[in-house]
C-alpha cells in the first residue's frame, strides 16, 4: 500500500474543474507520473502526481478540502 502525500498546503481538488470527471476511480491502474489531483496554493495550481505505479484504492482527502503539507491524499495498491 502506498500513499500519495501532499507536497504543499492548500486546497485539494480531485477533478480538473467542477463537473469534470475525477482524475482516478477505485480500481483504475495508475502509472508513475499520472495526475492524481490538483492543489491550489496562493493562486497557483499544482499537479499532484503518483510517484509509484499501482491500482488506485481511493482518495483520502475530499474534493475542496483544506490540506497541509505531507497529508495523505490518496492510496495506491502496488
Amino acid at each position, binding site marked *: 500500500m502506498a500513499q500519495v502525500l501532499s507536497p504543499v*498546503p492548500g*486546497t485539494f481538488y480531485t477533478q480538473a474543474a467542477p463537473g469534470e470527471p475525477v482524475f482516478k476511480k477505485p480500481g483504475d491502474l495508475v502509472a508513475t507520473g499520472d495526475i492524481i489531483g490538483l492543489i491550489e496554493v*496562493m*493562486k497557483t495550481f499544482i499537479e499532484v502526481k503518483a510517484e509509484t505505479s499501482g491500482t488506485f484504492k481511493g482518495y483520502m482527502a475530499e474534493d475542496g478540502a*483544506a490540506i497541509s503539507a505531507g497529508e495523505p491524499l490518496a492510496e495506491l495498491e502496488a
Partner: protein
Amino acid sequence: MPIERLLIANRGEIAVRIIRAAKAMGIHTIQAHSEADADMLAVRMADETVCIGPAQAAQSYLNIGAVVAAAKATHADAVHPGYGFLAENAGFVRALDAAGITFVGPSAETIDRMGDKVAARQAAEAAGVPVVPGSRGRLDTVEDAATVAASLGYPVMIKAAAGGGGKGIRIVQTEEELRKMAPQAQAEAKAAFGDGGLYLERAIKSPRHIEVQIMGDGNDAVHYFERECSMQRRRQKVWEEAGAACLDETTRSQLCDTAVALAKAVNYVGAGTLEYLYDSETKEFFFIEMNTRIQVEHPVTEMLTGTDLVQEMIHVAGGGKLRRTQKDITRTGHSIEVRLNAEDPMMQFLPFPGQVSGLRIPEGEGIRFDHFLYDGYQVPPFYDSLLGKLIVHGKNRETAIALLITALEGLEIGGLKTTKALHLALARDASVRADDFHTQWLEPWLAAGNLKPIH
C-alpha cells in the same frame, strides 16, 4: 472634507501599511477581512473590523456589494482599496459614489480611460508622452508594412491587428525578413482570428522597465521621480530600485516632466504610476500603461524622497491640496526593495505557506520591513504569496546593496519557504552590482542555474 473613518478593503502587508498611515493622521481605521483573515495583523491593529465574506476573494475582497455594504454599516466616509482586488475597478468607484462614500484614488472616468490601452495611449500622446512607435492602424498588404517599417526603423515587431496572446507576433531585423515573414504572420492571424490585418511596432531589444510616481489633487500634479523595476520573473517584479541609476539627468527630467503633463491633462487625483520601456542604448523611453493605484513598490520612492505617499493620497482624497510643490521634492541617495514571497526558489518558486515561527526582523538606519507577520501566524494559502518587502536606503547604489545583504542576513522567517536566498544571490551577482540587467534578464539567469542551494 477630510476623511475621518477609513475602511481598508484589502489585506496583507498593504492593509497594515494603510492602517499605519491613517492612524498617524488621526483617522479611525476599519479593517475589512474575509473569514480566513480574521487573525491577520491588520485586523489586530485596526480600531474596528468587519467580516466581508468567505475565504475566496471573489466572495469577499472582490465582492463590490459586500465591501460597499460593510462601508455603509460601519459608517465609513472613505475606502482605501490598496493594490490589486478592487483598486482599479471603475464599477466599485461608481458604487461608492452612489453611496456617498469617498474612494481613495482617481475618479471612475479616469480609471476607465487609463485602463483602456488605446485610450491611455491617445491621452499620453496628446500630453507629449512618447509611446512605442507603431503603425497608425491596420496594414493589409506587405507593401504597406514595408513602407511603415522603414519609417519606424528596424527591428520591428509584427503583430496581428485583431490579435492577442502572442499569436502572429514576429520580430524582424531587415526589410528582406519582413517581406518573408509578413505573409506568414498574415496567414497565422487569418487562421487564428479570421482577420489577416497586421500591426507594426518598433521592437525594443532588452528593454528596462522604468516607471514614474505621480501624485495629483485634481488641479495640480507632481512627480516623485522614477523607479527601476526590470528585475522580473513571469512579469512579476521581484526587486525594485529608486532611482534608476541608468538614467542621465536630461533623460530623467524629460521622463518625469512628461509624466506630470499627462497627470495634469487628466486632472488626476491620488497616487499613480506611469510605466515605460526604456532602451538604454538609444536612451529613448516609451509609455506602456498607467496604473491608477498605490503600487507594491512605493516604499523605495518614499525612502528616496522622504515622503509618506499613502498619507498624501489619503490627504488629497479628503479634498486636500498637494502638500509638497515640485521644487520641494528632492531625491537623496539610493533605495532598493526586494519582495519576500512564500515560495521555494529552489523548487521552481513553488508557493509554500505555513505557520510563522522564529521571526527576526532586521533594524537600523536605512532599513525598513513592510509586512504582516507575527510569530504563530498561519499564512493562509488562499491569496498571493507576498509576505513582506525589505527596503533599504543608502547614500548610493553600492552602499544600498551592501546594506541589503546585511539586512537580508538579519532577516529570519521560519515555518515556511521564502525567496530570501534569491535576493542574497542577486545582491552578490556581478551583473546586478554593475546595474547591467533588463526585463528579460532574470529568467535566463535562473534557467542557467545561477541560484544554488547553500549547504
